[in-house]
């Protein structure tokens, strides 16, 4: 920030700007020579990929807003007009709709990376918490965006999700009326959702800025989870990671583009091509796939919590479900303070490694449950999966703090990368040498 030592640039135009506003010095420091652990694997691409998706969503979103009408009577029609009449409207809308899904794919993988390699641990707690804030903002933005086409799923999704707030004791109903601007989801609701859907991505950009700032204070974690000890452990960000990130971004975008062109509706729900009807609820209201695990947790609480065999109820099932769902995110905030184990990376935590991989499986099970009707075996399955999700954070992590052994950490990244004798990873042994 301060005007410390600044190396002059040779190009006079750049130097003229930089001596007045050292923006080129900043870029060079943070993205040119920035020392980055040299042992990143491809999981470290997903921060950059998520940033690209955010920019892509803002660009396509602003262009869509030039043609969209945020009124209950015209919204559905204006989206159809974008699809049929606006030049390349179909492309821009499909890029935006599938872009949301791929933004979430990138972010979920990014979160898994942080979990598995212990990136949330000291000194990166605040970095991690800012990440959870980003996730929450993304969820709010995606939810409101899905309402805008004003199809059946838009309308009923909005109804169900805004009704979550009615579970709050005493003021719940007033809050819901405030959110709706009426007595049901209607034109005022659509209008304000549009305003907020336009606003929140820019708030998101701000929080991403803080997230990156915090990252550049602590430096990146790495697959070994040990601190860098000097220049022999790091590489300059450019060209090594600008290249590696670019490669990862291109592979990711190829998959994204394949969806956008060849199966643009595969991640959406066909009912959203039916105009919203406040008198007919679709048989199965399902949110977008990226909300399904949390939706499953919401529906898993089918029982009141109170004193058994009496009518005394502390938490009704409805409030319990809402608390469990928001609690699932709150646990992520608490994680850096729950986990006190000395090793960061799951590579050196034999028990945590299994538990966190089971958590991933658990997340997928919840995702499947969330997409099924709440009946039959899906309910107990969702309940067991919810139980594991909570137990991972509140039972297993504290137990691991006490009892889990720590495998021997390598002395430094440099030595781990160069040593051919590291037990499992034959990282740099050439076939000829091995023979």
């Amino acid at each position, binding site marked *: 920030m301060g005007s410390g030592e600044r190396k002059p640039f040779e190009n006079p135009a750049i130097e003229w700007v930089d001596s007045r506003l050292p923006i080129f010095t900043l870029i060079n420091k943070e993205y040119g020579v920035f020392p980055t652990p040299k042992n990143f694997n491809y999981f470290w691409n997903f921060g950059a990929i998520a940033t690209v998706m955010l920019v892509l969503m803002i660009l396509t979103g602003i262009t869509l807003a030039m043609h969209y009408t945020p009124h209950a009577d015209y919204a559905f029609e204006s989206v159809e007009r974008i699809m049929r009449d606006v030049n390349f409207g179909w492309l821009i809308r499909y890029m935006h709709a599938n872009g949301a899904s791929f933004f979430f794919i990138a972010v979920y993988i990014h979160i898994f990376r942080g979990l598995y390699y212990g990136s949330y641990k000291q000194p990166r707690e605040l970095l991690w918490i800012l990440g959870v804030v980003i996730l929450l903002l993304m969820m709010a933005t995606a939810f409101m965006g899905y309402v805008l086409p004003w199809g059946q799923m838009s309308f*009923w999704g909005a*109804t*169900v999700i*805004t*009704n*979550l707030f*009615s579970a709050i004791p005493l003021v719940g109903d007033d809050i819901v*009326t*405030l*959110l*709706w*601007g*009426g*007595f*049901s*989801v*209607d034109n*005022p609701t659509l209008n*304000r959702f549009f305003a907020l859907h336009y606003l929140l991505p820019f708030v998101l950009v701000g929080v991403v800025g803080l997230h990156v700032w915090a990252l550049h204070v602590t430096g990146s974690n790495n697959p070994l989870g040990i601190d860098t000890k000097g220049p022999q452990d790091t590489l300059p960000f450019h060209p090594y990671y600008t290249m590696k990130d670019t490669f990862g971004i291109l592979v990711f975008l190829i998959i994204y583009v394949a969806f956008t062109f060849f199966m643009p509706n595969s991640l959406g729900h066909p009912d959203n091509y039916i105009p919203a009807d*406040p*008198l*007919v*609820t679709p*048989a*199965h*209201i399902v949110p977008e796939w990226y909300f399904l695990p949390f939706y499953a947790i919401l*529906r898993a*609480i*089918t029982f009141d919590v109170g004193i058994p065999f009496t009518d005394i109820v502390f938490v*009704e*099932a*409805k409030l319990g*479900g809402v608390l469990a769902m928001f609690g699932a995110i709150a646990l992520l905030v608490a994680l850096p303070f729950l986990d006190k184990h000395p090793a960061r990376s799951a590579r050196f935590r034999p028990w945590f490694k299994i538990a966190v991989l089971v958590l991933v499986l658990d997340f997928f099970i919840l995702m499947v449950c969330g997409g099924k*009707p*709440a*009946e039959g075996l899906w309910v107990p399955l969702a309940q067991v999966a919810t139980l594991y999700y909570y137990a991972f954070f509140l039972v297993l992590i504290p137990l691991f703090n006490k009892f889990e052994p720590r495998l021997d950490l390598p002395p430094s990244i440099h030595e781990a990368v160069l040593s051919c004798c590291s037990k499992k990873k034959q990282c740099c042994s050439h076939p000829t040498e091995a023979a």
Partner: protein
Amino acid sequence: MSDTTQQDNPHGEEGSRRDFLYLTAAAFGAVGAGSVAWPLIHQMNPAADTLALSTTEVDLTPIEKGQAITVMWRGKPVFIRHRTEAEIEAARNTDLADLRDKQTDEDRVQKAEWLVMVGICTHLGCVPLGQKPSDIKGEYNGWFCPCHGSHYDESGRIRKGPAPTNLAVPDYTFLTDTTIRIG
């Protein structure tokens, strides 16, 4: 805080006086910020034209016994069912101990044959099925919410599933024997 004590102990008195100024300034600031924030929050509440649409009149004559109609009131569906004697009988004979949200059928109707309720599931706001003869009516012969599986009985009372309370009964009055005004 007289002048004399201030002269006696200038430093201590100066400090507490400064604190007092900070507190009052902050309090005025908070009141000011609150009074600016309130219009910005309250604008989200229902506007005057939205509130003006808050009553609906319904003519009940075309509804035969056993039939039900759905009317719109404040953007929400309202269920009006012309109940049969058997349905009234079943609703009246329910044991209150079996109910989650204990309410007698008499408390829920003005005239036993006309059941008027807001047709919105008290769980998360879906419209339950059960109005059309072909609809699933749930395990208690009333309404069934397909979203999260709540079952309501002949009186619209919650019997099974996640919903916490009975289907709401709106304020309504019989203008004549066969006309009601909702709201």
